[in-house]
């Protein structure tokens, strides 16, 4: 039996999404920007998808801009907002060239922020506490008259911590009402309500909620004059050119609608399974939970095991039919473990032993118990061959003794 427990990486396509997409992958092939019948039908489907997505999210249809996914939306939000800020006003002193973000953002934000810094923008990266939370006071303290954008992710992909973005953005706006607020809601949208009220920009990705890969959206609050990102034929009201992905938009909207309809029930079911799995995994000696114990995504379980390296654990789980992931150095292709685990204060040697299970779909209690049993066995196997684990005493051997 194969158990997929990596829903934060991607989710299988929902049946509702596939059904919504099929007509636009077959007979409805028209280019939505042409004028004849098959094109008009495609255009109608695109706008239906926009209205449906907006309704699921509680935003206006004209605030939804379809993109190729979360990474593009994050790039557009940051680069667009800073471009806007840098040409603000008539005087150089009126320009806003300062960007504030956090230490635990997705690389699509952090790498973009660092690129902007290399282009001459000012960058502040906020620290987080040991549960991964950003303090609203600290965020506000980082904001000055020249701060153009504050970007804080809603829920973290690795440790599942949910930020109090409504409090953070309220504090930011109190300090400087001109400052724009962006949230990367890729992990949370479709799973839990996103308190979008305080934000001006929001990134979304379809495939994290059972939609197709290759489509997402940037929600742009009405009145925010975000410059165009992709230049070309003037699609998406001149702001994001490129022939419209009609099937993708239809699938995305269907996944959002299904997610919204099932949200309350699914969040409760997955939270219970999550807590059951966390409790079982923490019975394994020398383990600990990473991220916030309560303010966390319904399906997100992230733990570290001492004296076990994360990638070998993930490979061992895979050999036993469980798909999971790790923030260890070896799974990232660098020598450093995940920036998120380091940002919450874990030492390198502990962070190397991380494993993340993200639950979703129709995963059952039986499957969750099986994950726990298999993990306990694989951890024991890895420890038995670890030179830093005392097999007789069943405890770590301090390195260098």
């Amino acid at each position, binding site marked *: 039996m194969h158990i997929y427990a990596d829903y934060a990486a991607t989710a299988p396509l929902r049946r509702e999404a596939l059904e919504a997409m099929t007509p636009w992958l077959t007979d409805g092939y028209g280019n939505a920007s042409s004028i004849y019948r098959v094109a008009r039908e495609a255009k109608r489907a695109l706008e239906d998808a926009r209205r449906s997505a907006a309704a699921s999210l509680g935003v206006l249809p004209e605030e939804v801009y379809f993109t190729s996914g979360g990474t593009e939306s994050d790039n557009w939000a940051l680069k667009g907002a800073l471009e806007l800020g840098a040409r603000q006003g008539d005087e150089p002193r009126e320009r806003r060239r300062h960007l504030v973000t956090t230490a635990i953002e997705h690389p699509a934000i952090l790498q973009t922020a660092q690129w902007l810094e290399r282009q001459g923008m000012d960058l502040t990266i906020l620290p987080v506490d040991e549960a991964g939370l950003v303090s609203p006071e600290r965020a506000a303290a980082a904001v000055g008259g020249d701060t153009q954008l504050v970007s804080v992710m809603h829920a973290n992909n690795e440790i599942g911590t949910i930020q109090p973005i409504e409090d953070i953005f309220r504090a930011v706006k109190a300090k400087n009402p001109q400052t724009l607020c962006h949230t990367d809601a890729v992990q949370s949208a479709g799973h839990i309500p996103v308190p979008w009220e305080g934000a001006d920009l929001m990134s979304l990705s379809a495939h994290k909620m059972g939609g197709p890969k290759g489509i997402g959206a940037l929600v742009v609050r009405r009145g925010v004059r975000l410059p165009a990102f992709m230049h070309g034929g003037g699609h998406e009201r001149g702001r994001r050119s490129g022939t419209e992905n009609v099937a993708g938009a239809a699938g995305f909207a269907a996944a959002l609608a299904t997610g919204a309809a099932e949200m309350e029930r699914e969040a409760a079911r997955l939270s219970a399974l999550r807590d059951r799995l966390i409790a079982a995994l923490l019975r394994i000696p020398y383990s600990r939970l990473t991220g916030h114990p309560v303010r966390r995504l319904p399906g997100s379980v992230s733990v570290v095991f001492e*004296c*076990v*390296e*994360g*990638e*070998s654990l993930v*490979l061992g789980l895979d*050999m036993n039919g469980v798909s999971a992931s790790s923030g*260890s*150095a*070896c*799974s990232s*292709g*660098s*020598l450093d*473990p995940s920036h998120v685990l380091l940002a919450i204060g874990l*030492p*390198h*040697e502990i962070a*190397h032993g991380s494993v993340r299970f993200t639950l979703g779909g129709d995963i059952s209690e039986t499957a969750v118990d099986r994950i726990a049993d298999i993990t306990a066995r694989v951890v024991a196997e*890895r420890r038995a*061959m*670890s*030179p*830093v*684990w005392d097999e007789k005493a069943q405890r770590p051997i301090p*390195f260098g003794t």
Partner: protein
Amino acid sequence: MYTDKVMEHFSNPRNVGEIEDANGVGTVGNPKCGDIMKITLRIEDEIVKDVKFKTYGCGAAVATSSIATELIKGRTISEALNVTNKAVVEALEGLPPAKIHCSVLAEEAIKSAIADYYRRQGIDPLPIVGCDADCANCGQAAAGH
């Protein structure tokens, strides 16, 4: 990302454990980098009669340790000293670029254990092994260790 050979050695590692009456022991790597290899040797008449390993590390670290023990078991000391990280990579039919340091670690573990063997015999390992194989404190350490 891994070759079948790497996965095969990860799934069925050879020579796992510690030799009780080992006369050469080498431990290299550190927990901060996420990999530690310990090789124990039983050397008799200049021949590696037995070898075992214990490794804390990623899939490549386990596979390189496993194949390294196979490459030196039953060989003379000088043959074992000629096992380079390149030979380890070739025997595994390749490693991803980010994992080459694991093969360096395997080479270092062998040299470190042989150096320890010589020290126990009252022989200075430096002229034979080429370095003192105190890899944890080596300024020339490879691949960022």
